[in-house]
């Protein structure tokens, strides 16, 4: 299925990518995350959180076609 991967801030800088359409066999978030880490090994040494469809998730949620998976560096707002 197609998943949209988004990178922001320092992560976009390090991966040199901000949006990526990925055709993946991963059905769950952790599998997709591993796939992305293999594509961009630089992410392994960076701190990030993940939002699926604009909501921060900690658990290994199921993905659906068209899900937006965002890799977010530490927040610096305010």
């Amino acid at each position: 299925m197609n998943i949209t991967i988004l990178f922001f801030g320092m992560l976009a800088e390090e991966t040199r990518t901000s949006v990526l359409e990925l055709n993946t066999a991963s059905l769950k978030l952790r599998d997709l995350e591993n796939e992305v880490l293999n594509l961009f090994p630089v992410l392994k040494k960076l701190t990030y959180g993940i939002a699926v469809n604009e909501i921060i998730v900690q658990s290994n949620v199921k993905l659906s076609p068209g899900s937006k998976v965002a890799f977010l560096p530490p927040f610096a707002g305010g």
Partner: protein
Amino acid sequence: MKKSLYAGAISPQKIADSIAHHQVKTNIGAHDIFLGQVRADEIAEKKVVAIDYSCYEEMAEKVFHEIREAAFEKFDLTCLHIYHSIGIVKAGELCLFVFTSSRHRKMAMDACRFIVEEIKLKAPVFGKEVFEDMTHQWKVNS
């Protein structure tokens, strides 16, 4: 949905206009305003001249909206405004403007503090600290 993201620095004039708009609301007795200002910090002998803010826009607006809803739920507020800069904000300029209004001071002050902490914690906003020599480092909230 009301937008909170704001292009560039927030001017003192915008704040004055916002205050002036509330003078018709004569059930308000207290306003609290929090302003974030970009500091010219020195990091490894280099001086910050600006912060270039970026964000996950759709998610950020959603988070600001949820913070606003939560604040109205928790506190007895008459009005509430949140503006966060996106893009370049120079040292000395304002990057955050939180404005709460209530009948009584305690509600306005408690709500303002709650909102500022929530923004720091939950808003997907990223800051690139730009130095004099145009090198940069990424800011992390403490």
